[in-house]
């Protein structure tokens, strides 16, 4: 309990809220790395996921691949890519992309699959092209599931982005690693609390987006 209070006092110290290496700077870096990881992963995973969901083909291999990707330890990937690409931002971001892809993929294909097949057939019967069916029927109706995938990926990545600091970057991980190595546990715990808070904020914000994007009239679960 004292440790927790000391950590909160560490966060509350006004000297840590301005200047280089201060909490706001590290928070922004942390958010930026998260955005990079999830953003790049989304560019890859969402189109593939929608294609799989729309065509109902290739689901087996995609599920198997993304399941395998989930099992990769991210610290191992960061180290491996770091040895290959050198220290800096590329190696960890690549690892975060791999971490984010399975959730995004699952969100995208289940967004399509969740749409009632009769609705899709009706759209097709009205003469909509496959592209129109995807963009005007499946994506709007399945959007909450798609956003749900983004939310899961973002929360996973934001909690893992501390590893960027392991190999020469900023982010909230700097406080965690420095605190750990100096036995400065208030600092370590303070950094961890900030990561948790950031994850909660992102989770809540994207839950809100999920609600707002729910199609009118669609059954809510």
């Amino acid at each position, binding site marked *: 309990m004292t440790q927790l209070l000391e950590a909160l006092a560490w966060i509350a110290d006004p000297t840590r809220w301005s200047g280089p290496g201060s909490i706001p700077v590290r928070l922004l870096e942390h958010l930026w790395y998260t955005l990079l990881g999830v953003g790049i992963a989304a560019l890859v995973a969402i189109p593939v996921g929608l294609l799989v969901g729309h065509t109902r083909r290739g689901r087996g291999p995609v599920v198997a691949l993304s399941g395998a990707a989930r099992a990769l330890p991210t610290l191992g990937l960061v180290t491996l890519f770091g040895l290959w690409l050198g*220290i800096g931002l590329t190696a960890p971001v690549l690892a975060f992309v791999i971490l984010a892809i399975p959730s995004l993929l699952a969100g995208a294909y289940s967004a399509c699959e969740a749409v009632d097949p009769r609705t899709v057939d009706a759209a097709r019967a009205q003469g909509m092209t496959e592209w129109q069916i995807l963009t005007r029927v499946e994506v709007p109706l399945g959007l909450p599931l798609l956003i749900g995938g983004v939310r899961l990926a973002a929360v996973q990545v934001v909690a893992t982005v501390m590893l960027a600091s392991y190999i020469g970057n900023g982010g909230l991980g700097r406080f965690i690693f*420095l605190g*750990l190595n*100096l036995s400065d546990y208030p600092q370590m715990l303070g950094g961890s609390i900030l990561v948790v808070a950031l994850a909660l904020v992102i989770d809540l914000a994207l839950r809100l987006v999920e609600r707002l994007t729910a199609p009118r009239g669609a059954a809510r679960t």
Partner: protein
Amino acid sequence: MTASRTPRPSRGPALGRRSFAALAGTGLVAAGAAACSNEDPLAKESGSASGGSSDGGGPATGALVIGSQQYYSNEIIAELFAQVLEDSGASVERQYQIGQRDVYMPELESGAIDLLPEYLGNLLQYLDESAATGTADDLATALGEALPDGLRVLPHAEATDQDSYTTTKDFASQNQLAAIGDLAGVEDLRIAANPEFEERPYGPQGAKSVYDADITVVPVSDSGGPLTLQALLDGTTQLADIYTADPSIAANDLVTLEDPESMILPQNVAPLVSERIDEDAAAAIKTVTDVLTTEELIALNTKSVTDKQDSATIAKAWLTEKGLLGS
């Protein structure tokens, strides 16, 4: 029994340096698996808690329990001590690869561990940060004050495994570097080092005040391990903090800059022992510390990193070669 090499074990204040890897449970740090045996500390926990006598095979006084840090080189040193003690007739129980100083110091104080190889500077830094300056002998004296009752350090070895300002041969020759002071005036200097290096008296502030060199730390948290080395070799940084007993210095033709002002905290190997280590046992341990130089330690480490031998094999061969067994 081959342990994946965790990033360099911390000789940091809390041994925190590799503790992160331990926390994250990574076995996948790919670079160079050191062939150290990795005994399961839990397997013997009940034995160690009672001073190691629970296995029933020891003498009435119980076996001496020897611990090591979670650092392959430290385990080799522990094994050297273990084998000379066994050779002197003592009964020994091994408890290697214990994580952080925060974890094993209470074990030493409670008597669950009797002997663990330590490093003068980091041990003193852990106990009393303000006292941690000076030569190895100063540190040993200060440790006598700072250690809790019942614990002492035996005479330290010449071998030191300490932080360094290390660069590539090319960069050293281009800029005519031999000592840290030669860095004064060189622009855009970056050193890959653990994040806490920034806070140490021998970090960038020390380099500025003692040697007038301007250096920025690029934090790489693998304690002078493969990523730190990689950053130096690919030119991301011009300097790296690689511990002086690391075989990668010689293997990559690196140059460790001299420290004529003794700014860097000495990390001579020193056996930290409980009261159960009597004068006979201390004498046996001293036969090792008397001949253990940094060069010898590097040679021992190389056998683990390069030849993938386990600590028992490495220790036995070295002790035999030095004539320290069977006397």
